[in-house]
């Protein structure tokens, strides 16, 4: 079980962001993607998620080019929280886990909200959430996705307070300890216990 990036090159609007980027991620592996603003961290994550097509190179999962099987085994959380104002926190999480193909009961969702410290907001329409609470609601999917091997998290710690950061990094550490894989971009250096931690620096 592994994620392989083979000689990836990415461009945005004709501008070369990085080229010949390669790495292998094994079970239990953590990869931190570093780099300044506009260095291509988000583009790299979107490429790994299969949203953006690389200018050259390819992403492989278990030796095969990424496809439908890959999407079943991958969780991507981008900048946008994908939380609908009109729906309650519980309904939002119910929909996002259904779309990820996870069959999850309401009590499991409640305990996921508990693990992010927002259980009391479960029945609140998301429009009343603060920025940080919204981010927590989006990240509650981590607690439901322990069975999903690969997590791709773009700036998971942005807008979070210290307590939430501790909760999220604990979830990440548990995922890695259970043999999961994690790629994350972050400006802060949040310590995450990992059997196999590496980082790459993108320079434009």
């Amino acid at each position: 079980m592994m994620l392989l990036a083979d000689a990836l090159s990415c461009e945005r609007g004709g501008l070369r962001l990085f080229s010949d980027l390669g790495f292998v991620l094994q079970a239990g592996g953590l990869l931190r993607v570093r780099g300044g603003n506009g260095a291509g961290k988000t583009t790299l994550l979107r490429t790994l998620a299969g949203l953006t097509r690389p200018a050259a190179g390819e992403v492989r999962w278990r030796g095969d080019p990424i496809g439908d099987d890959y999407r079943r085994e991958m969780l991507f959380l981008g900048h946008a929280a994908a939380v609908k104002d009109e729906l309650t926190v519980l309904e939002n999480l119910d929909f996002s886990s259904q779309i990820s193909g996870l069959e999850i009961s309401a009590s499991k969702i409640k305990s996921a909200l508990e693990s992010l410290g927002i259980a009391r907001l479960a029945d609140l329409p998301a429009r009343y959430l603060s920025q940080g609470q919204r981010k927590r609601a989006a990240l509650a999917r981590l607690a439901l996705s322990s069975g999903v091997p690969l997590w791709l998290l773009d700036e998971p710690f942005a807008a979070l307070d210290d307590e939430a950061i501790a909760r999220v990094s604990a979830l990440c550490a548990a995922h890695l300890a259970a043999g999961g894989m994690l790629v994350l971009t972050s400006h802060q250096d949040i310590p995450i216990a990992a059997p196999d931690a590496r980082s790459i620096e993108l320079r434009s």
Partner: protein
Amino acid sequence: MLHAFSFIVRRELRLALRRKGDALNVLVFFVVVASLFPLGVGPEPNQLRTMAAGVVWIAALLAAVLSLPRLFATDYADGTLEQMLVSPQPLIVVVLAKAAAHWLLTGLPLALAAPLIGLQYDLPAGALGVLLASLLIGTPVLSLLGAAGAALTLGVRGGGALLGLLVLPLFVPVLVFGAGAVTSTLIGINPSAHLSLLGAFLAVSSLVGPWAACAALRVALD
């Protein structure tokens, strides 16, 4: 797959229920536009009868164009569309479910309201039935081809106007056969030929529309 289709449709309906204004606006727009014509052209019954089907159909097309920009735009803006693309659900199922929900929320209410509009135009009972039938067959085309247009103009500034220019020409066959069915009933010709052609066009657009929308969505989120 059927499960994915049904939970996306149910979610769209629930969202529409929480913001009733959007769906209601489209229906009110349709009724107002169709009701303005008799006021503008005068109360001559023969004239009204001959133009009824065309007016109702054009009002339906304009109402559809009014509603289409929102089909993907809110999901695009808040990141839901991105999550749908990276999910294991086939994108075509997502698009079909969104088009189906769009029809349930706009096409179906328009079709059901049309016979009431037809009464304003003094249409006989038989023609009212054909008008309803033509709208029931024709409005799904507006949602299916409209989905492709909405996906193509996603993220484009002033996309609403562009969307109208893009999809209205594609709606021409629906307008011709839809209005034609009612008009032929009025002059005593069996409308089944028109309705069959409308059905054929629905079959073609249910293949082409969602497929084009999928390709356009992948490009929009690249």
